[in-house]
């Protein structure tokens, strides 16, 4: 593996002085990582491999790591206690899109693993990069067969789910009755009651839209949303403003997660934080991890993925991320289990069902809402 080589000529230094940090790397080097030294400084090698002794760079989203009590920090500490390889997290602001763009433009990937991929994003990766491999399939993960079948998002098993959330309604039972079906939401009893999120930009918003398509069918979902719009549904840009408005009692119902009561289970709080599973369903939104095909530490990356799927890691990720484990064998603490509700019937679209449809569904929907 080639390392990043730095030009230290006078010319480059002069430009660097002007512009701050000017990185010059070898163009053919698609597998650079963040280290800047040529050659390693001794130390032990990791596991059974002869891979470079450098930190494993894990690209993820902002809330996955940072402080004690996050899933990422637990993973880092637990992994580093047993392994010589360090874990480094980064949170690119455009998520997986950044790596799609990097791959398209021939820029280095600069990471070994991506954590926090959902089905729609994986579909987009494959649609955007039909002839290039951003991720590859890890072999021989001992724990991979514990993943629940219903949660698998990738027919090629490049992306492996490590937890899942269920999108549901959260409603204030002091204001409204529990809605039972999707059609209930279009009745006068729920006029001006629902807050949702923009499916173009928000994960729960997209999951809720997909749930309605799952129930109403691709032919009818726009009609259903017209009824919702006529019943004065409000679609805000993201989960945070929607949930904040719900907390300010602006509206009694919000599209959110079925783990809501983990945060709010005080006696006076519970009535205001009831979970509504429409049609006794919840839309599963599994989060997956995948190894970058360009990594120069494929075995270490695979070992880390296997580690994430151990029972102990699964329980800790679920609790810290306020989600559910992706494997069949993980056990959750009782107190957590009591307030994190799973829908009687989880539903979700598979990779095959989303491929070729997702962007079209979302665009049609957004055009209709914006024109109404």
């Amino acid at each position, binding site marked *: 593996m080639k390392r990043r080589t730095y030009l230290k000529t006078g010319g480059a230094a002069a430009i660097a002085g002007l512009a701050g940090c000017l990185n010059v790397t070898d163009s053919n080097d698609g597998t650079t990582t963040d280290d800047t030294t040529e050659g390693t400084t001794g130390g032990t090698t990791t596991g059974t491999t002869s891979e470079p002794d450098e930190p494993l760079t894990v690209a993820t989203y902002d809330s996955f790591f940072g402080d004690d009590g996050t899933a990422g920090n637990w993973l880092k500490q637990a992994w580093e206690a047993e392994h010589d390889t360090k874990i480094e997290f980064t949170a690119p602001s455009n998520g997986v899109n950044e790596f799609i763009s990097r791959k398209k433009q021939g820029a280095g990937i600069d990471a070994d693993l991506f954590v926090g991929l959902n089905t729609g994003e994986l579909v987009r990766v494959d649609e955007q990069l039909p002839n290039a491999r951003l991720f590859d399939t890890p072999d021989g993960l001992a724990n991979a067969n514990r993943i629940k079948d219903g949660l698998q998002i990738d027919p090629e098993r490049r992306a492996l789910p490590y937890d899942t959330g269920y999108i549901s309604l959260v409603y204030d039972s002091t204001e409204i009755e529990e809605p039972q079906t999707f059609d209930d939401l279009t009745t006068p009893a729920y006029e001006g009651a629902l807050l949702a999120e923009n499916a173009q930009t928000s994960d729960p918003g997209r999951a809720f839209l997909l749930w309605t398509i799952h129930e109403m069918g691709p032919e009818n979902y726009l009609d259903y949303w017209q009824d919702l719009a006529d019943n004065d549904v409000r679609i805000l840009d*993201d989960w945070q403003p929607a949930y904040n408005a719900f907390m300010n009692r602006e509206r009694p119902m919000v599209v959110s997660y079925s783990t809501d009561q983990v945060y709010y289970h005080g006696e006076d709080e519970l009535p205001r934080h009831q979970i509504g599973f429409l049609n006794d369903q919840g839309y599963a939104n599994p989060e997956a991890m995948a190894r970058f095909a360009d990594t120069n530490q494929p075995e270490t990356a695979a070992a880390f993925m296997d580690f994430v799927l151990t029972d102990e890691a699964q329980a800790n990720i679920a609790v810290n991320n306020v989600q559910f484990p992706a494997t069949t064998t993980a056990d959750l603490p009782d107190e957590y289990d009591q307030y994190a509700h799973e829908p009687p019937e989880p539903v979700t679209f598979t990779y095959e069902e989303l491929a070729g449809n997702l962007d079209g569904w979302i665009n049609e929907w957004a055009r209709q809402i914006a024109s109404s």
Partner: protein
Amino acid sequence: MDKRVGAPDSEQLAPTPARALLAAAGLATLLVLLVVFYYPVWTVFENAVLRDGYGVFDALADPLAAVTPDVLLGVLSDPFFLGAAHTLFEAPLRVPGDAAAWTVELLATARPAVVSRPPFVVLVHDAGNVDFGLFGFTAYQAVLSTVLSVLVGLPGAWVLARFEFPGRRTLKSLTILPFVLPSIMVVAGFVATFGTFGTVNNVLAALGLGRVEMLYTLELVLVAHAFYNAPLVTRMVGTAWENVNANAVETARSLGAGRLRSFTDVVLPQLLPALAASALLTFIFTFMTFPIVLGLGGLRLATVEVWLYASVNQLDYETAAALGTLETAFSLFFMYVYLRYEARRASSGTGKPLPRERLFSADTLHDWLRRAGVAAYGVVVLVVFVLPLVSMVLASVGGVSDPTLEWWRLLVERQGSRTEPSVAVRNSLLFGLGALAVALPMGVVVAAFSTRGGRFRKLGDTVLMAPIAVSGVVVGFGLLQGLVFGVDIGPYRVSVVGPAVVVLAHAVAGYPFVVRNVAPMLGNIDSRLVEAARSLGADRARALWDVELPLVWPGVVAGAAFAFAISIGEFDSTIILAGESTYTMPVALKRFLVDRTAGPSIGPAAAMGTVLLVVTALSFVVIDYVGGRYRP
């Protein structure tokens, strides 16, 4: 590149080096713009005009093969984007017939009524069955936002310029505070203030007037736009007002002009350039509005920028580039028209300013009426500006009903973790000062360039103003693929990132404010003063430094405050260029917002927002104080 124009320490600058210095400053400005703005933005826009696989050099070599209008036409002929006007591009021959039918339709169906819907009076809200499309709606709400911002901002300029009261200078310094606030905090503040159970409604309910649903209406979005942009009007017009030459007014009065007449004939013409400039900026900003519309209005009130962002998100670069190009072309067109007819009558700091009345003493009925007006305006300021800000501060302590210091404790505990509040404060201030040091010379040089010259100068001037006419989403994405990903040069891949680049990006975003504050004043300087200096042996740079700059100094200070504010509030390019460890206050705020260890509360973000508020407030006071003390 942040060399002061004309070094003051060398008393006898030879003409040639001084001119070279000015030219060098100009070239440095262009270089910075090229690297951190024009090139990155071009990498996005080229998707709208070039065929796949063609670059800018192919376009120059063989324009016919490389350039295609298809992408732009695709957007322009789509009724969703352009409404009824799409026919212009889809089938031009149908236009006369359609326009006739359209007029009939408009006359038949539009209800140009002033509808009263408490608490708002809704202007022509219903355009009947005629569809204006996404661009039409975006322009419509931008026009309304501009009108409201001017209405809310203008009295502020009057109060600050014409009355004397304790704390006036501080208040003036604080006017641009809203400018730096992240939209998410403004949305939260507005929900807490104008929501069904918000402060305003609680007062209404207590008065027995009943609650009014204000959230998710266009009207409230307009108020939020006024929250951001009215301070711009206040600050820019207020600065011009303070520089109105009292002698001219006194002359007019002594010649028999009444109060009104002397205002319309003498004062108003001197305010108009600042008023027009601030209105134009407001229009451009609100035309490119994005999170505010979605947070307070919902997707129903989507604007062009919402679609642009969604397109980038779906990696649909062609649509994104087309929308961005049209948006920018639209903004720059207005900018050019404005610059072309910019009245060069703005006052500069010559002569003595108008005397200020003492606010807290009144003798005549007229005086009392004026003060009643000020008091009424004070109520508006209280509701539109103070309450949302106070709500945000209150959210950081869990509100009035259930106070807690938990979020502040959490903020303190974050010291030593991934995102340290103190590091965020330090980085923000360093970036802000750095951006200021670069943006001021850039702005003054460009202002000096733009003040003189004819039609082509104005065209150049327009292009130099582009940083405020290009959407933040486009700039951010351009920086990512243009600078962070890098370009292949020979066998090497060159990428430009890091703190110094953040400073430059901030300076580029901020310097247009320096230009627009300084240029009108510079244009008004009696050219005989400069000529006199030149004939006495001063070269161009020395004349600028010794004669012109002191005269336009109030504009420089006002521009400096804006440049600093832009840097402090900047998010898009910071997060892309700065990297994991060089975060600023808005970036830290965003991280605390999604910090699930604190639960779904906005408390930690509100606490960080309060820190942001206090730090920037202090900075503004210092900038104005130092700027007022120090004149070259």
